[in-house]
């Protein structure tokens, strides 16, 4: 390790300990609370926050530490959660009295079909044996097959047909007592003009957007013009979505800085 790394690490450790001591004395006391541990945890959370943010400058040992800790802890978290909620909570009470008792969950009743998924699961684990690898594909085939079957009609319904039928808009909206098109152009009529423009844009936008996605036809002539209009509409949308999302992302940063400034440093109230 280079000397500068050592110095920075030492400084960080010292600051951490100082913050821990101060935090221990400032966390509010209430019966069950353990200020010493709680002080450590808040300081540690702040340390991890800063460690991740330091990545913006460049890769460094603190980020590496936080990253590896995060990956390890989260993988174990998923495993533990899955084990307790799914296996203990859902599977064991349906297949084994003994296992349920051992984990302290009430046994429901025996259901024969719940034996199938553990068998498939064990088949899947056969991958780890050098010779049984081929059998693990049975479980994969089951998962991939059911997924494909599930998606086949369901996407045609929700995404497809619903989207098509909601494009059926009259291109001209009804005139509501304003008279013919140009004779009585008032504010209300301009509203209707916008409504017409809106309907036409939706109609043409969907149509040309679809034409852009044609793969087996050359995008030339009228077809090419439509396809180009389609990609323009797409780009307008992408730009707008990007611009709109900025707001939400800044809110996240505000949340994080508030944690650092308020919960940890106590600069703002």
């Amino acid at each position, binding site marked *: 390790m280079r000397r500068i790394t050592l110095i920075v690490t030492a400084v960080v450790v010292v600051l951490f300990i100082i913050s821990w001591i101060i935090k221990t004395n400032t966390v509010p006391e209430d019966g069950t609370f353990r200020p010493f541990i709680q002080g450590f*945890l808040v300081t540690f*959370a702040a340390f*991890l*926050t800063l460690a*991740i943010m330091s990545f*913006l400058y460049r890769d460094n040992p603190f980020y*590496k*530490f936080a990253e*590896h*800790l995060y990956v*390890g*802890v*989260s993988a*174990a*978290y998923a*495993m*533990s959660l*899955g084990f*307790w909620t799914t296996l203990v909570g859902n599977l064991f009470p349906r297949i084994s009295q003994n296992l349920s008792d051992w984990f*302290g969950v009430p046994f429901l009743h025996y259901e024969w079909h719940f034996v199938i998924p553990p068998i498939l*699961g*064990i088949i899947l684990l056969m*991958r*780890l044996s050098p010779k049984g690898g*081929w059998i693990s594909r*049975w479980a*994969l*085939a089951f998962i*991939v*097959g059911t997924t*494909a*079957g*599930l*998606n086949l009609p*369901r*996407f045609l319904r929700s*995404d*497809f047909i619903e989207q098509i039928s909601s*494009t059926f808009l009259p291109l001209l909206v009804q005139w509501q007592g304003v008279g013919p098109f140009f004779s009585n152009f008032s504010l209300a009529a301009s509203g209707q003009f*916008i409504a017409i423009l*809106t309907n036409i*844009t*939706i109609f*043409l*936008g969907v*149509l040309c*957007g*679809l034409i852009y996605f044609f793969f087996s036809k050359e995008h030339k002539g009228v077809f090419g013009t439509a396809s180009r209009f389609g990609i323009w509409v797409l*780009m*307008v*949308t992408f*730009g*707008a979505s990007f*611009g*709109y999302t*900025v707001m939400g*992302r800044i809110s996240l940063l505000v*949340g*994080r800085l508030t*944690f650092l400034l308020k919960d940890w440093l106590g600069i703002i109230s």
Partner: protein
Amino acid sequence: MKREIPLMIVFVAGLFMAVQFFVPHATSEYIYEFVMEWTIIIGIFALALGIWSFIKVAASKIQRRSENWQYSIVALAGLAGMIIFALPWFGGLESYMFRSFFNNVMIPLHATMFSLLAFFIASAAFRAFRAHSALATVLLLSALIVMLRFNPYMGPLGDIDADIASWILNVPNLAAKRAIIIGIGLGIVATALKVILGIERTYMGKD
């Protein structure tokens, strides 16, 4: 046989689930629910495979003393700690240490990682929003119009901008998303069909 049986399973399972969609009867609902529960349970077993792979990669790094191997120890320690704290003897998911780890390690890391987006959205905008072509200009302008709503010093222009921005967000946005979604719907159906019919079988591997 090593290849035919899995393809048969794919075909039967796929066809079955596709047909199930059209059958409202309770029996069909039961089967659907069972299959959903099964896949979740199989997923937990698969997670064991995942953890095994994780340990294998980390251990080999440590063994070979490859670059940054020290941090693999941190990762393994985090993994082991979290699993141990969730053991029944510590109180499972309700154990103090498990919850503390969750609240003071996972939550802050998650939120901070997420908040990095505020920075990256800025750098991406700076890097990519350059008017080097007509299309790029459209992209840039529509983003600027939407973002300008946040500028308080626009005067009457602000009102017009707000109107244009909400029109863009409602109308072309709707049209484009619809076109994309319809396309995606077709793509999904085509891919699902290829899988069920066994045309697409690369994921099966080879022996």
